[in-house]
């Protein structure tokens, strides 16, 4: 930062020094007076004509005037190229030096309308310049739309006039060209944004203001125009000027939050009054250019007042900047109005400004547009920041919501699991109640009813214990794995059958190592097998028994076959009850029991369909 300010300071110092040097060695002649005679002839009137001395700049209302200016050229400066610098020559004219034509700047005619904004630097050929006294004649005409104006001219070495010429050229012409171009681009952009987003009225107003100002500024860029287009062009010009002020007012109202529909229509009507009146009056410059345009000034002041009021109320940098720019623009506007109307006030207070006729509203308006663009950019940036912040907040909220959902889901799942475990417990309790419980109760009832023989008691209790073991096996830590429960079951029964002298063959046909089904289901399956094996032991008088387990993706199939005496009478009470018992157990878990008398022996098979099929 420091280095930058240092650089800036040094640059300014250097520039100031250069300017001082330039002015110190100036040999420029700046005549304050001229002799004038009203004469429309193409050649200067003779010396005997009615020449009258006037001070420059000189203004007259009608007719063509010849000006005579005499100046001395020192001999030592003769070798240098000389020039005449005319800060303005709005209506063109003719220059003659020492009786010979020097230059012709196109003048208005029946075919063309001329309004030269640019300054003129007329080089003087070395042959025309004399040592000592020289006589310069300048013919300037007043037109229907403009008074005759003879500027405060400068005569001197071309090099020394060049910078003043270029400076003015830049400010009154190059700058205007840039302004037109920039206003057109920015205006179209603003209007485009508004076209796509109607709710962004500020962009639309800004775009309109820029575009109108660009059109108005074209008056400084177009210097020669065919007379046929003049009326149309002036209409457009006045419309753009008034439109700009009114759009500015609307912009300020919008920014200040003032909504007044009727006022808006009134403003619109006043705006249209200008160009329509101009067209209708056939191009009355006084009526529109002075009276109507003068009516725009209070509107400009209103813009300023509203902007300042809003800035004071809202205390935003944007509005403060806008107000400042408006103050400058309004001052510039007044200044221009005073110059245009040749106000005696300005002539008295600041005669130099009046002499140079530098119109300032253009720069004020440029500044205003710049501030408006800045405000809109700041708003856009603030909006983008807001969106980013909003996004962040939203993201955080979504994340929090997701976390809450996940937590909720987890809780739900654990509840479901608890529920499932609870259901499982319920099933097992029911099993205990229906199986072990009822058996114990039955045994107790029989014992209470009368003396039971020891064998009956032992048998009943053994059945109880077997049932309990089955339940315990099913509830072992490897709960859920049918193969583990089957291993326990097989181990116990193999040994029991061995001790009874019944040869048993156990076959397992599966590729799976872990068969997951609910414990209460396999308790039922094992009970059925237990029942079948008990039947074999009790009733079959068999010598061998084969127990086959087959597990695949779809089903668990257990088959118990013996080589005993078969079912006998299937309707016998005990047999019937045993089989019915097996079937009811199977039904409880959705399995199917088939009992086939196969002479010899019986085949009991249990078929349990696994759902869903396990993942491959």
């Amino acid at each position: 930062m420091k280095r930058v300010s240092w650089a800036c300071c040094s640059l300014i110092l250097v520039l100031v020094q250069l300017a001082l040097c330039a002015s110190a060695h100036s040999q420029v002649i700046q005549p304050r007076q001229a002799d004038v005679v009203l004469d429309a002839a193409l050649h200067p009137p003779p010396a005997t004509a009615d020449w009258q001395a006037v001070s420059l700049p000189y203004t007259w209302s009608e007719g063509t005037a010849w000006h005579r200016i005499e100046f001395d050229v020192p001999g030592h400066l003769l070798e240098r190229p000389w020039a005449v610098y005319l800060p303005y020559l709005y209506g063109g004219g003719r220059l003659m030096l020492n009786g010979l034509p020097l230059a012709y700047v196109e003048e208005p005619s029946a075919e063309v309308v001329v309004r030269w904004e640019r300054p003129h630097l007329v080089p003087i050929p070395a042959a025309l310049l004399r040592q000592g006294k020289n006589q310069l004649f300048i013919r300037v005409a007043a037109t229907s739309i403009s008074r005759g104006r003879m500027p405060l001219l400068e005569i001197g070495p071309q090099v020394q006039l060049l910078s003043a010429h270029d400076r003015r050229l830049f400010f009154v012409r190059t700058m205007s060209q840039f302004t037109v171009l920039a206003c057109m681009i920015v205006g179209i952009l603003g209007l485009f944004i508004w076209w796509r987003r109607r709710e962004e009225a500020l962009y639309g107003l800004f775009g309109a203001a820029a575009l109108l100002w660009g059109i108005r500024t074209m008056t400084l860029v177009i210097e020669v125009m065919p007379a046929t287009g003049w009326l149309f062009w002036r209409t457009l010009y006045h419309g753009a000027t008034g439109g700009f002020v009114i759009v500015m007012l609307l912009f300020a109202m919008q920014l200040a939050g003032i909504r007044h529909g009727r006022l808006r229509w009134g403003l619109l009507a006043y705006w249209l009054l200008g160009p329509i009146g101009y067209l209708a009056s056939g191009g009355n410059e006084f009526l529109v250019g002075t009276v109507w345009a003068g009516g725009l000034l209070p509107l400009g002041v209103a813009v300023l007042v509203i902007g300042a009021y809003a800035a004071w109320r809202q205390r935003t940098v944007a509005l403060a900047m806008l107000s400042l720019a408006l103050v400058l623009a309004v001052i510039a506007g007044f200044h221009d109005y005073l110059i245009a109307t040749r106000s005696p006030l300005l002539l008295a207070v600041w005669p130099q400004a009046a002499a140079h006729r530098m119109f300032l509203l253009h720069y004020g308006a440029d500044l205003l547009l710049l501030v408006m663009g800045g405000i809109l950019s700041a708003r856009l940036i603030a909006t983008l920041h807001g969106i980013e912040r909003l996004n962040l907040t939203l993201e955080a909220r979504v994340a929090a919501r997701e976390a809450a959902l996940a937590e909720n889901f987890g809780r739900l799942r654990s509840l479901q699991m608890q529920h499932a475990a609870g259901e499982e417990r319920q099933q097992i309790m029911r099993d205990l109640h229906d199986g072990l419980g009822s058996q114990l109760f039955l045994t107790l009832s029989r014992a209470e009813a009368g003396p039971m023989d020891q064998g009956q008691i032992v048998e009943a209790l053994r059945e109880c214990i077997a049932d309990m073991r089955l339940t315990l096996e099913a509830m072992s830590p490897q709960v859920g794995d049918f193969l583990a429960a089957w291993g326990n079951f097989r181990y116990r029964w193999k040994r029991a059958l061995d001790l009874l002298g019944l040869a048993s063959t156990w076959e397992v046909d599966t590729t799976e190592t872990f068969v997951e089904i609910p414990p209460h289901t396999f308790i039922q399956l094992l009970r059925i097998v237990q029942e079948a094996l008990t039947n074999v032991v009790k009733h079959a008088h068999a010598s061998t028994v084969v127990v086959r387990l087959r597990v695949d993706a779809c089903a668990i199939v257990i088959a118990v076959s013996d080589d005993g005496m078969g079912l006998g009478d299937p309707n016998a009470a005990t047999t019937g009850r045993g089989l019915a018992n097996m079937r009811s157990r199977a039904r409880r878990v959705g399995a199917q029991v088939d009992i086939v008398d196969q002479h010899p022996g019986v085949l009991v098979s249990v078929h349990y369909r696994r759902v869903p099929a396990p993942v491959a």
Partner: protein
Amino acid sequence: MQHRGHNHRDLGCAMTISVLVVEDEPVFLQRFCEAIEGEPALEMCGSASTVAGARLLLDTLAPDVLVVDLGLPDGNGIDVIRHARARHENCDVLVVTMFDESQKVVDSIRAGATGYLLKDDSPGDIAAWILQVRAGGAPISPAIARRLLDIFRLSPAPLAQAPLPRAQDRPTPPILSSRETEILRLVAKGLHFKEVALLLRISPSTVITHAKRTYQKLAVHSRGEAVYEASQLGLL
């Protein structure tokens, strides 16, 4: 121990095996007594119903086999097992359980037991188990086999539960041989030693030897654990 076991097989007919029963439930005590007396090779040398009594009798009688219930009025049967292993190296220990409470059995094996009896086994069974243990065999139920596989960090089946988390912070147990693992896996599926022997085409006594070695490894492992834990506590 193994040496003594061989001696017994050689001299089995000449000598009887003295059995000490520690059981606080009179009915079961009675049952065990009957079972032991029903077998000529066995001799009931005494019975106790408390930990203290069991220790006293162990030291005075020095039985060949100790049959011990875990739930005693004045303490845990595991203490009796430890006492027996510490003082009477040649004494075989059988644990009495109600059902196949695999965790209790495994804890007992860690303490030094080499087998277990079920309370509802028939008298013939009980005598047979005692003889089998004395002969060097150690019955293993499928549930216990699965637990052993867990302890040795050998999953009984690839899809079964992960090894007990408890075992992970302990010193690595001695690794079982592939044959020992194979036998444990078959037992876990519900096969008896005889069936395992048939399937693997080895003699039943070889299966028993493997089983016993597995038990010993677990006991050794538990001794290692004890040392580890003691050193962790700063006792060693």
